[in-house]
């Protein structure tokens, strides 16, 4: 067997200052073999980014700090080889494509690392063309990087990372800033690179379900320690065994875990197979929803669009056309649709940041808008200066009053941004892609915040691509397509079929269950019903593995 592309032997690392990035590594031993596809999981600050930085030599050379133990990348000792020397062996892709692009034209961007390595011009040209073909971006080669979408940019970054043919590719949450389609394309490209070129891939990714079927191993980090290093199926069993780690499960694995179906499925096909018995057994029933944010016809209308249209100045065509929508107090609405369908424009119209070109937008009270990046709201040097004490207390931030907002964790910053926009108790709260780049644990925290009693009377609109989160949050879903309302109905209908169906809905079609919890409840009801029938018929039950 050939040497590992990455080998850590009792490797520990600590960042230099308290203000530095969270999550060092503690006594980690592992080896990544050539051609392996390894998924790295863990909460924010658990150490997964540190591992990826170590693979590229950024830790400890770029960040400083103290390291102990042994670490080699393709046989090169991390102590004596920095990121520049390791660039030929490890390609790195970070989260934000905007800050990884150096050149103005795609061809030059892909050529940049090769030129740094001193390649001959003819070799550079050949490698650029070969890489562009491999990733299907040849048509972008002469495009300006400033004109590319986030997804296209990240593929260019990936191309630059693999152009030199590295043995290891380290991807640090590369899809966190991308929409689902672009994210899917990028992950598919990484998987192809792994399969076709035998490049070992080390990837930290929140959308585990997209990567898990391709993974050979899964590494899980907690507080800098490697707590799980196992193949995907064993990892799922390990995560399901402890409730505090259940957030690591994919939706289908969560559904099966709640229904006590074993072994847990690694992909959709396995999950569908596991559940096929149920569809042949007793009919499934739907349990009652949690009922949060249930709007009633008696509630007052808080926000109303009447035949609203909007066109961007100087642009042909309308961003929004003929929008007729009303939102009542306490309602929970998910606004969905592809990129460019008009979701963000609709929210900006509702907040009054832009004026409609035609029609009207009327709000009975104040409207709060939380934009995509909560950091944009953090202006002051003290948390206490950002929002009044009452608002901080409501979001559990009163003990952080004297801290610098930039020192807070990602979840705390989002709570602070929410405290800022809700400090005057708006009657309508709008959230633009609040779950982008979040792991499932942070999404659960956000869900709890939005379920807080203080927001019971507030109508909440959430623009999102995240169907699983929308299913947990919303009772009503509006789908925009090319600036028009393409669908407007209950979540159990809109998210049950078609491209917006949740994983649970696709596994259990036609019965109106959207979330793993509801799916498991329906399975339990079905099992109970089957057992009751069997008892009456005095026959053994065929639903082995499902407890009631």
């Amino acid at each position, binding site marked *: 067997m050939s040497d590992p592309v990455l080998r850590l032997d009792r490797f520990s690392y600590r960042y230099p200052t308290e203000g530095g990035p969270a999550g060092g590594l503690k006594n980690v031993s592992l080896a990544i073999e050539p051609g392996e596809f390894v998924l790295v999981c863990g909460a924010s600050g658990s150490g997964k980014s540190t591992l990826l930085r170590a693979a590229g030599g950024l830790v400890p050379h770029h960040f400083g700090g103290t390291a102990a133990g042994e670490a080699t990348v393709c046989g090169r000792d991390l102590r004596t080889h920095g990121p520049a020397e390791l660039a030929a062996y490890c390609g790195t892709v970070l989260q934000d494509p*905007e*800050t990884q692009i150096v050149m103005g034209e795609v061809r030059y961007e892909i050529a940049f690392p090769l030129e740094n390595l001193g390649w001959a011009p003819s070799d550079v040209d050949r490698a650029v063309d070969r890489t562009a073909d491999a990733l299907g971006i040849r048509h972008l080669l002469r495009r300006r990087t400033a004109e590319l979408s986030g997804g296209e940019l990240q593929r260019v970054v990936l191309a630059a990372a693999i152009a030199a043919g590295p043995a290891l590719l380290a991807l640090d949450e590369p899809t966190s800033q991308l929409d689902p389609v672009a994210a899917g394309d990028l992950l598919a490209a990484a998987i192809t690179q792994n399969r076709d070129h035998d490049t070992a891939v080390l990837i930290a990714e929140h959308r585990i379900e997209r990567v898990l079927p391709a993974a050979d191993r899964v590494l899980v980090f907690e507080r800098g320690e490697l707590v799980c290093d196992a193949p995907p199926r064993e990892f799922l069993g390990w995560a399901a065994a402890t409730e505090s780690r259940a957030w690591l499960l994919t939706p289908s694995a969560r559904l099966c875990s709640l229904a006590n179906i074993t072994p847990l499925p690694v992909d959709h096909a396995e999950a569908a197979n596991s559940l096929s018995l149920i569809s042949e057994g007793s009919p499934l029933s739907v349990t009652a929803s949690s009922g949060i944010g249930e709007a009633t016809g008696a509630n007052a209308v808080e926000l109303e669009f009447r035949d609203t249209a909007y066109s961007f100045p100087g642009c042909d065509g309308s961003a929004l056309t003929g929008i007729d929508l009303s939102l009542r107090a306490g309602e929970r609405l998910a606004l969905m649709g592809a990129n460019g369908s008009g979701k963000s424009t609709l929210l900006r119209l509702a907040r009054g940041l832009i004026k409609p070109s035609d029609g009207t937008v009327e709000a009975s009270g104040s409207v709060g808008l939380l934009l995509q990046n909560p950091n944009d709201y953090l202006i002051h040097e003290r948390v206490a200066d950002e929002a009044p004490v009452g608002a901080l207390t409501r979001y559990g931030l009163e003990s952080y009053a004297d801290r610098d907002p930039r020192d807070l964790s990602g979840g705390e910053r989002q709570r602070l941004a929410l405290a800022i926009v809700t400090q005057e108790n708006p009657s309508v709260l709008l959230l633009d892609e609040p779950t982008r780049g979040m792991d499932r644990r942070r999404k659960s925290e956000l869900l709890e915040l939005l379920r807080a009693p203080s927001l019971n009377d507030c109508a909440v609109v959430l623009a999102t691509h995240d169907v699983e989160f929308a299913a947990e949050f919303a009772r009503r879903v509006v789908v925009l397509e090319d600036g028009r309302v393409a669908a407007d109905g209950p979540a159990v209908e809109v998210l049950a079929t078609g491209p917006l169906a949740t994983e649970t809905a696709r596994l259990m079609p036609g019965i109106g269950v959207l979330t793993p919890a509801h799916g498991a409840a329906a399975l339990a009801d079905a099992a109970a019903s089957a057992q009751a029938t069997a008892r009456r018929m005095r026959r053994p039950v065929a639903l082995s593995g499902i407890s009631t």
Partner: protein
Amino acid sequence: MNAAAGIARALTFGYRPRGGVLQRARATTSCGWFAALGLVIVLYENPLVSAVVLGVTLIAAVRCRVLREVLLAVAVSAPLAVLVALINPIASQQGLTVLVADLRLPLVGSIEITREAVVYGLILGLRALAMFAVCALYVCTVDPDQLLRVLRRRSVRSAITASLAVRFVPVLARDGARLAEARSCRPGIKPGAAAVSRAVFARSLDRAGDAALALETRGYALAVPLREAHRPRRRVDWAVSASAMLVAVIAIVGKSAGLASFSDYPLTQADLGPWEIVLILALGVTALAPFTLPTARLDGSVSAASASATEVSAASVLTTSASVTSVSASAACNVAAPSASTDLSTGGAA
């Protein structure tokens, strides 16, 4: 959209590869053409020359399909030109024609506003505007990557630093727009300008840190000088080079001959005789000659027949310009030749 976000978005213009002569020529060659125009602005205070440069820039912008971007940049920078025009009458107490006497201003005290100071302020504003337009056209038509590749053969780190500075202008402008939008979403009292500026600065430092990280992973620290294959000069390169050289020569010769001279104080006087007209025409025709070459389609192709025809005409225009240069040179030798002087001050002396 609020004003800050609007301005931030307006500033996100950059290189536009739209098939114009300046975009198709080598970046270094186009730089030479811009340097020649800049030289004209620096050498001549005569407002007619500045107006010609502005006109040449706008016509070139049309031919390079970037007029909208250039006009936008000029509109954004116009307040600065207006400021220059307004400050000069207050700052300069020279000139013979007093328009307002004993004007009392806070901090400044008692001042006099003279016609000459007002006119010179306007001329300074026009020169500033012409320079802004030239810079905007430069940004839209010169490929920074190409330019930096030339620089990378000599100084890798400086080139990449400059590259990042150019590349991050739109990124930081978008950051600024987002911060401005988030600020307008805050209920109650909005944070002051100082707090927002601090946040913008902190954000730019974060961006710099992220960019440094990306550079490290691309092997930047190796700093290997760029090896690049030789690319032969094309006709468009020769045409732009010839135009740049001729503009520079005409400007220097004209200045040496004392053509288009300008006097700001005590009375505003600008020369406008036949030789000045020849000079202005020579500058304009020479600078615009390469633009008789065809603009490529956006896929980069140029019609062969029209290309050869117009390149011949461009060459003939440049030949004509060369003969004009020789006329200017002979004018320079004849320093005693009378030149009509137009007195811009129409009022009597104070």
